[in-house]
């Protein structure tokens, strides 16, 4: 089976006032259907750049030097090439760090879901928009989709807003979902619920999930594979358990040692 997402030899550079900064350096990564891949690293390790590159949300001063990104076998990014518009929101959905603020405060949840559906599903009827909106909120384990649809973001709790944000990313049934630090702003209980939700979504829908986090323990709970990043490079990559139990790299060992333990 071909991969959902393939990064091969991806190098990305930012042009700054006082020179250039390598954000990603020769990164290889692959995600298959039904697989959760964790990208773990400290701030500045390049994990967010990696996530944003896939949907073409790099800053103006950032460019791809080498390598390619392919989504479901189709090349979308290469040096001087940006075809991410063809997969953004349709084949690839993205959930951001601060979900509360990733909803437009002036629009009802219903309007925001309808906007995405109308954009990506050709000739969709009004009834179909409503049906799929309710369906996706139910998938997000929201008990009263009707009320949530009719609400403005500020009328919902943080946890609900997070679910709505995830719903907005998956309502178009993308094959791949990218979650960028999307549990960081949540308290531990809500965090667990969101992680469980992702697991269920991957199992039920057979999507691939790229889970970006600085939290190694969280990644080990959720992910099948883990890529550890540092200084723009993937320093270690493999099965989650292998990486955690038998880290091959000094950096990974240091990351693991930094986790406080009970014993």
């Amino acid at each position, binding site marked *: 089976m071909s991969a959902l997402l393939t990064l091969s030899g991806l190098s990305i550079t930012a042009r700054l006032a006082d020179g250039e900064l390598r954000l990603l350096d020769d990164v290889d990564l692959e995600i298959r259907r039904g697989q959760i891949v964790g990208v773990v690293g400290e701030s500045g390790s390049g994990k967010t750049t990696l996530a944003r590159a896939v*949907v073409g949300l790099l800053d103006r001063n950032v460019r791809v030097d080498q390598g390619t990104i392919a989504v479901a076998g189709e090349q979308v990014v290469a040096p001087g090439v940006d075809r991410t518009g063809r997969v953004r*929101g349709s084949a690839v*959905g*993205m959930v951001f760090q601060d979900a509360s603020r990733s*909803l437009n*405060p002036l629009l009802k949840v219903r309007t925001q879901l309808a906007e*995405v559906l109308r954009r*990506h599903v050709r000739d969709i009827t009004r009834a179909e928009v409503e049906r799929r909106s309710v369906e996706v909120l139910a998938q997000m384990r929201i008990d009263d989709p009707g009320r949530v649809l009719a609400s403005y973001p*500020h009328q919902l709790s943080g946890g609900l807003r997070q679910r709505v944000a995830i719903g907005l990313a998956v309502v178009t049934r993308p094959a791949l979902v990218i979650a960028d630090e999307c549990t960081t702003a949540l308290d531990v209980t809500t965090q667990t619920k969101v992680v469980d939700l992702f697991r269920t979504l991957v199992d039920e829908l057979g999507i691939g999930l790229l889970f970006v986090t600085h939290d190694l323990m969280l990644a080990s709970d959720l992910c099948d594979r883990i890529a550890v990043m540092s200084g723009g490079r993937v320093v270690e990559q493999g099965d989650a358990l292998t990486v955690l139990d038998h880290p091959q790299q000094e950096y990974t060992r240091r990351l693991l040692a930094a986790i406080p333990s009970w014993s």
Partner: protein
Amino acid sequence: MKASTVRRVGGRLASLFASLLIALSLAFLLGRLSGDPTATILGPMAPPEQREALRHELGLDLPVVVQYLDYLKGVFTGDLGQSLQFYQSNTSMIADRLPFTLQLVGAGMALALLVGIPLGVLAATREGTWWDRGASTLALLGQSVPVFWFGMMLVVLFAVKLGWLPAGQSGSPKHLILPALTMSVYPMAHIARLTRASMSDALAEPYIDSARARGISTRRVVWRHAFTNAMMPILTIVVLQTGILLSGAVAVEYVYSWPGLGQLALQAIQFRDFPLVQAIVVFGALVFVLLNLLVDVLHSIVDPRVR
């Protein structure tokens, strides 16, 4: 309606009423402070008995408190008194001049919005580029150039040198072009700068990146998501600017001999026609209070969080 909403609206109305009352009192007080109008009206050579008679006729010999209460009663019953120089009711004179000022302000503000908003949005969406720098420089110029000077330069160019447009007075749509253009320059620049700032804040919000990641088109992200969120400060300024211009676009009206309220105010001041000055100030205060109310209403329409 929720109880908190009722309380908020009530509080707002009370504070607007208080502002209005303060403005009315100031208008009255300043009129009294500017000296005895009978000297101006009758000339410096008039005999004292004649001036005394006029003072009596105008009610100026009554105690100030009585005059003040009479004045307030008049304002709230729609009677703004009589002009000393035109022997007409001030209300009807304001009503005669208002359409001209409305035309001028309407055309000027429309032009300001039509140019200022796209300019600001352009600058914000291309932050740091030459487009941005160009638009910002233009806006700075627009805010700094003196209105009367700019007006006269337009007259020199388009009326005197080229002869394309009339140099002043009203009567046809052609007469409106230069005054409206002159009037629009300051608000246009102000709106452009504010739009630039407000849009660039909005564009940095996480929901903008999220919308882009969902594949929403750039145009829709800019206008539907960023602009609607950036709109409130712009709306506020537009409405308040309109208020400032409505109650006296003095310089523009003077340069173009435009028969609006600003001209009327000038004439009233020159003649020490204090009832008319007072009436125009009162009218301006009323307009302001109403426009403030309009801003509140618009705000609650745009933003569900303040409903």
